[in-house]
Structure formats: C-alpha cells, structure tokens
C-alpha cells in the first residue's frame, strides 16, 4: 500500500520508474529500521523490568544524584546499545572473515524484510502483497542461513553446536507453524495480510469478535501450535537450546561482540515481533478493535495491532523467566511427534467444520 502510494505519487512528478522505485523503497525502509531499533529498546527495557518483577528485584533504576540509568532506569537499554556500538569489534584470527562479517547482516535482513508485509493498521502496510503471509513465512527462514554461517565461520566448537542446533530447530518448527497458518488460509481464502484481517471483521452475537481464533475449535488449537512453534523459531525459552548459555556459552554468537552481536540481538527481538505480528494478523483480528463499533479509526488500528503484538511479546518474556529449557531430542519429539501431526489433523478438522457449519 505505502510503496504503491509513493510510487504513484512519484509517477505524477515525472517519468523515472527505476528511481521512483528505489526512492519509495528507501522511504519505507528507513522508518522500518528506526521502528525495529526503537521497538528493540522498548522490548529490552520490558524484558529487564518484567523479569525483575518476576524475580523479586527492581531491575534498572535511577537512584540518587546521578540518576545512573535515568528515571526508572529508562536509559538502561540506550546505555546497553551504546556499549555495544562502542565495543571493540573482534574477529578471531582463525575465523572465516568474510562469512563472519556477513552473517549478522543476513540474519538481520531475514527479520527486516519480513516487516514489509506486516499490516500495522488499515493503511500502514508497506506492501500488501497478494501472497503476504506466504512471503513472511518464506523470508523469515532466511535467518537460519545467517546463523549457520555465523556458527561455521567462527571456527569455534560451541558456535558450531549452536548453529547446528538452531538449523535443526528452525527448519523443523517451520512445518507446524506453516501448517497451522494453512488452517487460517482455508477459512479466509486469501494469502493477503489485509485480506485475512478483513475476513475477521464483525462480531458474533454482537459481543464476541469474529477473530479466527474464536471461529472454530480447530483454529483455537492452531493458534497455540503457531505461537509455540513461533517461540521455537525465535529461539526463545523453553526452546532456546541454540544459545543455551549454561551449555553452549552463547551458541552461534559465542565469538561475536560489539555491533555484530547487537545485530543478532536486534534480529532476535525483531523475530519476536514478526511472530507476534503474524499471530495477531492471522488469529487475533489484526488491527481490528475487540470492542464492537468503537475505536475503529486507523490510529486506533495501530494501537490495537501494537497492543496485541506487545501482549504476545509479554507472554514470550513471561515464558522465558518461568520455564527450564528442553533438551534437543525432546524438542524434536515435541515438533515431529506432537505439533506436526496435530497440525495436520487440524487442517482436516478446520475443513470439515467449515464444510458442515460454515
């Protein structure tokens, strides 16, 4: 939408289609990058504070004259980011230099370009492709290539372990995630993100929002399968085995420091947002208001989308500070013997339910 609008606008100014395309893409990409950076700061602050509330500590606080981290420690994530930027950038001598440098950017690009199809509200979507959800699922698995590159090029056994674990994990969990999205697509009949949201407008009996999660019992199950698989795809606890700090030091990121490490960190948080964004779009009505008839303007749409996504991110943080970590074989068992068959059955269930009652 936004890209198309910009390109139409440029077309009015003159006939230079290539330049117009590049300009339009740049104008869209810069705010997205800033949004990711800003959101990551908020999420890191949230992670610090939420974990603190859960663990009987206060977290970052500004106390005394100097106000070390600003009021309520608000400056703590900024300080963290500054520290990472200013830190010495170490490349191990035995590392494969080119791959080592390239890896964090590939991981980040995988997360970054997925934002292009996330609908923040009625109008605010960079490109409302007719294959939007498929596009996101496809590009978000680009990151795993970067992780393997990072693990391989570091020339460190821990990194290699982390990379292999994450490759196995992300590739496996993509299947139940995609299968549960198929259940949604069967109901909506479209792959476009806005189309999926439009399908969920209206209310059942005037009260219950007509979100896909509430539409039939199988989609309810599909939501949980998708969310948990998404959790595994972002390497969050209880599926954080690729970077299990008590086993693998830091997994694929062991040798990384400074800005390159920051990019991995950033993409982890960006991935969390993407998973939450897809879950919100596909199951929780996207930017639609949960209250019948009010708060339906585009500004409120942005608010609803963000608050739903942030709630799911809060749940992820909550999980992280509650659960222990699964072992790698148990993780695979859960995926291949649990989620994948259930998701398969789910597809039939959704179809039959839709045929009989829809």
């Amino acid at each position, binding site marked *: 939408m936004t890209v198309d609008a910009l390109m139409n606008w440029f077309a009015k100014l003159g006939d230079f289609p290539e330049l117009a395309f590049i300009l339009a893409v740049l104008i869209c990409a810069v705010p997205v990058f800033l949004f990711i950076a800003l959101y990551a700061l908020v999420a890191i602050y949230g992670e610090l504070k939420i974990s603190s509330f859960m*663990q009987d500590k206060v977290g970052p606080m500004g106390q005394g004259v100097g106000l070390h981290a600003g009021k309520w420690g608000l400056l703590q994530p900024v300080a963290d980011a500054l520290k990472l930027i200013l830190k010495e950038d170490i490349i191990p001598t035995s590392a494969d230099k080119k791959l080592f440098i390239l890896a964090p950017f590939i991981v980040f690009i995988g997360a970054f370009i997925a934002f292009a199809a996330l609908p923040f509200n009625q109008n605010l979507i960079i490109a409302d492709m007719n294959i939007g959800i498929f596009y996101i699922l496809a590009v978000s698995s680009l990151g795993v290539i970067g992780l393997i590159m990072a693990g391989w090029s570091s020339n460190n056994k821990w990194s290699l372990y982390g990379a292999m674990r994450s490759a196995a994990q992300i590739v496996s969990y993509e299947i139940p995630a995609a299968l549960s999205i198929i259940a949604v697509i069967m109901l909506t009949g479209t792959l476009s993100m806005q189309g999926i949201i439009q399908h969920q407008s209206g209310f059942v009996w005037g009260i219950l929002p007509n979100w896909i999660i509430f539409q039939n019992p199988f989609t309810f199950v599909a939501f949980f399968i998708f969310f948990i698989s998404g959790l595994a795809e972002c390497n969050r606890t*209880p599926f954080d085995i690729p970077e299990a700090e*008590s*086993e693998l030091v830091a997994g694929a990121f062991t040798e990384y420091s400074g800005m390159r490490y920051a990019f991995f960190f950033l993409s982890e948080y960006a991935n969390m947002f993407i998973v939450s964004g897809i879950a919100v779009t596909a199951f929780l009505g996207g930017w639609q208001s949960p209250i019948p008839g009010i708060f339906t303007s585009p500004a409120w749409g942005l608010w609803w989308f963000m608050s739903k996504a942030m709630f799911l991110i809060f749940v992820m943080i909550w999980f992280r500070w*509650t659960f*222990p970590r699964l072992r*790698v*074989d*148990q993780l695979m068992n859960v995926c291949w013997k649990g989620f994948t068959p259930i998701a398969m059955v789910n597809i039939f269930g959704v179809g039959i339910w839709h045929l009989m009652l829809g």
Partner: protein
Amino acid sequence: MGVVQGDQMVLNIGPQHPSTHGVLRLQVRTDGEIVSEIKPYIGYLHRCFEKHCENVTYEQVIPFTDRCDYIASMNNNFGYVVTMEELMEIKVPERVEYIRVIMAELNRIASHLLALGTYGLDVGAFTPFLYMFRDRERILDIFELTCGARLLYNYMWVGGVSHDLPKDFERICIGFLDYFEPKIKEYNDLLTHNKIFLERTADVGVLPPDVAISFGVSGPNLRGSGVKWDVRKDEPYSIYDRFEFEIPLGEGEFGTVGDSFDRYWVRVCEMKESIKIIRQAIKNLPDGDVFQTIPKKIRPPKGSIYRRTESPRGDLGYYIISDGSPKPFRVKMRSPAFTALSSLSEIAQGWMLSDVIAILGSLDIVLGEIDR
C-alpha cells in the same frame, strides 16, 4: 583422550564455562550431541590446603577449612573442631554444641539452596535461582549477625565458638524458619513439578546404589540412590543423637532410583529436615559460657585421628596426625565432592551434552573442596 575418529569431536568444557560450578575442565568426546567419554581435569583451584596446615598452628587451620567448601564453611569448621576436640579429649559446654548444630544446619539449608538454584540454572530455569538466592541471603544475614562474616565464618573454634549468639537470635532464627518453610512449596511449584524440569531430570544420569558405593559417593548423592547412610544418624557426632529427623531417600518417584531428580529431591527434603533440627535445637538451647573450654594453648598429645561429619555434600572426613607440637604434622581432608565428581564419567557417559551439564549440576560439586 586417544584417537579422535570420523565425526567425533573433542570438546573442552571449562575451565572458563558458565556451568562448571567453578574452574573445572571436562574433556568430552562427542559424536554430535552424544557424549561418549568424559574426563574431568581438576586442580585449577588448588591452594595447598594440606601443606599449609603443616606450617600453621592448629587454630590457624580453621580459616583454611572455611575456604575449602566455601558454600558450607560452618560445616567444614564443624568437622575440624569435632575431630580436634576428640583428639584433645575436650568436652565442650552444652550451649556450644547446640549453637554449632544450629549453625551447621542453617548452613546446610544455605548450601542446598545454592545447589538447587544452580541446578535449575543448568537446566535453563533462571528465576528459581534468584528466588533461592533471595532466601539464602537471609541465612547469610543471620550469620553476619552472629559472627560478622557472610561467607567465610571462622566461627567454630576448638573448644567453643568465636562469638556467643546475639541478643534476640532465637526470635530472628524462628522468624526466618517461619518465613522459609512455605517457600519450599514455592520452589516446588515453580521448578520441581514443572513438566520440562521433570523431563530433563527424571531417568537422567542414573547412579545405581552399588556404583555409588564403589565410588565412595556420599551425602545427598548417595541417599538419592536409595542408600540410607547419614553420618548424623549412623555415627552420631556432637549432639545429633538427640534430635528427631528423617533421612530422605531417593525413591524414583518419576523415573529410576538414583536419577538426577532423586538427587535434587533429596536436597529439597533435607532442607525440611534441617528446619526440624533447628527448631528442636532452639527450643532446647541451654544457657552457658561459650568460651569456657577454649584451651589457651592447643597442643594435642601424640597420635592420630580420623573423624567424619556430614557436610551438605556428604562425608567430610579429617585425618589429623599430631606429633605433640603446636603445629599439625599432617592434616588430610576427605572431600565428598571429589568422590562425587569421580563418578561423573561413569554416570554421564552416553548422555547428551546438555545432560552432562545437568548431571554435573545434580552432583553439587564445589571446586574449592575438590582441589583444596
């Protein structure tokens, strides 16, 4: 480590690693995630404890014992002074005995809290660790109130203790116990009965009773394997025969007897038993002078003695040879964590890398005591 073939890889876990509980190096041979051979290398924390002891007087040994098992310093002091008193045939006042038992059991709780917390950390649960540290902090506060130190107490002296109890110690201590007892349920809700935690611990790293005995494993690790052996009950020292308490045993509730969960669970139950002992000790705490029997000069008669006590990690033995001079001729410490570590290569073989870390955590080793 021998020849490394094909897909195998030799991996050094430590000495700088987040979960080796100190500076331990484990050399493991892995095939993918499966670990086929484990070789622990120790000595990174060797501080010549035993040689030092030969060059200092008997009372100066006590601060060194603090630094062996720095998680349970009181218990280490306790073992040494009990041995010395038996060698010198000193009968300490009742009050001293009770104070020592209270302190040793408080320290046992503190030590188990740390063991359970770091075990949770090893399997990836971060929050229980902080909860347990929060409560351990209160015990350290009680120690600070009593003897001024929080980690290395030098509290128990031959023939007495360094300070009498503070004025309202009983109220503070009972207050702590009342606060702490319900917290055990909190830990169980958060960690013990978590499905993922059970999956990670039950049936993992089984230490069969006969293997445990042949390695000389003792303490909660041995009791986790279902062997009823507790020095406090079987060879009572000090006044442990006066207290009523149970010896919790591993029952294989969720898996096999002697698995990691049993070792963990025995520690949880032991904290409850320690609470019982402390309550009884505080109820019967007599008055008296705690400095009365501290000898002016420690010069034990010629001879040798071996005495063992139950530290939070197992049988802590001291072998002391005296040649009649004010300095010991030889002090040997039998460290329970050392024997526990030696069983690691037996029980962790064939498990996955993550399990090796978890099994190591379940053995609750302290490198200060292993290396001495």
